[in-house]
């Protein structure tokens, strides 16, 4: 933590809303990235951003500076996001039936196959992420989306580096199984129009 950030946090701890605005300006995209990574739904991710900064303003007095501020914040984001997914359940899996097979909507069918494939991929990733235990999902988001190191992840998740590695490993393994028919298709979806032809929906 540099001096500027320490001073900003200290002002926020004294109830200075301008300092909170500075923290917001610095971190809101990261917070949104993690929230969106977990819930995969725009409105809900924005609600989480709002909730996190309000919570932060109320609880920043408890931050003692023993860890990095961003890991403290990331932990708050992750916990809030996971709480949201628990409250709202499986609301975002609109295009997947109970067996997990994909049913394209009318709107998608009318569009080019490339769009269909992209939409299918996005839906499928949402679905697969939800299948993961919250801790594994958090590990994947922290590492693959936010690019945190193992040490930073351990701080943010309140566990050891060994546990972080284990969560990442099992999370990746599981999601690879769930998305095995889709890995490698994202790039194709930008050019290849025949990717979906003759391919059966995966039975999971």
């Amino acid at each position, binding site marked *: 933590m540099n001096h500027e950030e320490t001073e900003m946090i200290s002002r926020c701890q004294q109830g200075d809303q301008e300092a*909170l605005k500075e923290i917001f300006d610095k971190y*809101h995209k990261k917070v949104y*990235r993690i929230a969106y990574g977990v819930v995969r739904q725009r409105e809900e991710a924005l609600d989480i951003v709002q909730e996190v900064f309000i919570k932060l303003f109320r609880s920043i007095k408890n931050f003692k500076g023993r860890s990095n501020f961003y890991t403290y914040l990331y932990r708050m984001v992750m916990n809030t996001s996971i709480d949201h997914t628990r409250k709202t359940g499986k609301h975002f899996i609109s295009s997947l039936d109970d067996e997990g097979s994909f049913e394209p909507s009318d709107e998608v069918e009318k569009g080019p196959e490339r769009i269909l494939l992209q939409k299918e991929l*996005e839906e499928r990733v949402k679905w697969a*992420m939800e299948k993961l235990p919250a801790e594994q999902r958090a590990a994947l988001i922290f590492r*693959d989306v936010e690019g945190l190191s193992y040490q930073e992840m351990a701080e943010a998740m309140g566990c050891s580096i060994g546990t972080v590695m284990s969560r990442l490993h099992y999370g990746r393994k599981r999601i690879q199984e769930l998305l095995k028919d889709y890995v490698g298709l994202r*790039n194709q979806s930008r050019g290849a129009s025949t990717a979906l032809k003759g391919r059966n929906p995966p039975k999971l």
Partner: protein
Amino acid sequence: MKDSCFSVSKFLEKYFDQEVTEKERLLVEGHLQDCPACRDALKSMEELRTLIKVPVEEAVQKEDFPWVWQKIEREIRLQEKLTWWQSLRSWLDVSPLFKKKVWIPAVATLVVLLFITAQIIFKNTPSYPDASVVEYLDSPTYNVMVYQLEKPGVTVIWLFEGPEREQPTT
């Protein structure tokens, strides 16, 4: 997959996450040159990362955040206007004494003490020590109020004709 894959596999994920030591990096990179299976495993991890990451980045690019800050600011302002009851509750919440739930027996004791004190006070100091209203009658000519004093056999009767002419009759 070669035999050496087993020894390298434990470093492959760390290599992918750029968390290996220099020695481990050389070991993995040396192995990858001759092992298409491990190269494929690495490529799969990369593709998976792209699948997870790209939609998130696209969503961030599309978003406009200033209004989110406005909502946060408004919400904080609203929460600052606490009612006196909420203020009291928040004070109770932060007090370490009350956090320990000592307040439950303390409040119970206080209530009992108040009850006992009230009994004593009201017993010894009646509102009108010498008399109490026994009866009150309305009539077209007089309004009558009858008091019974504590002294036995003494009754006070008030006749009200008007505000200036009222006289006690014993």
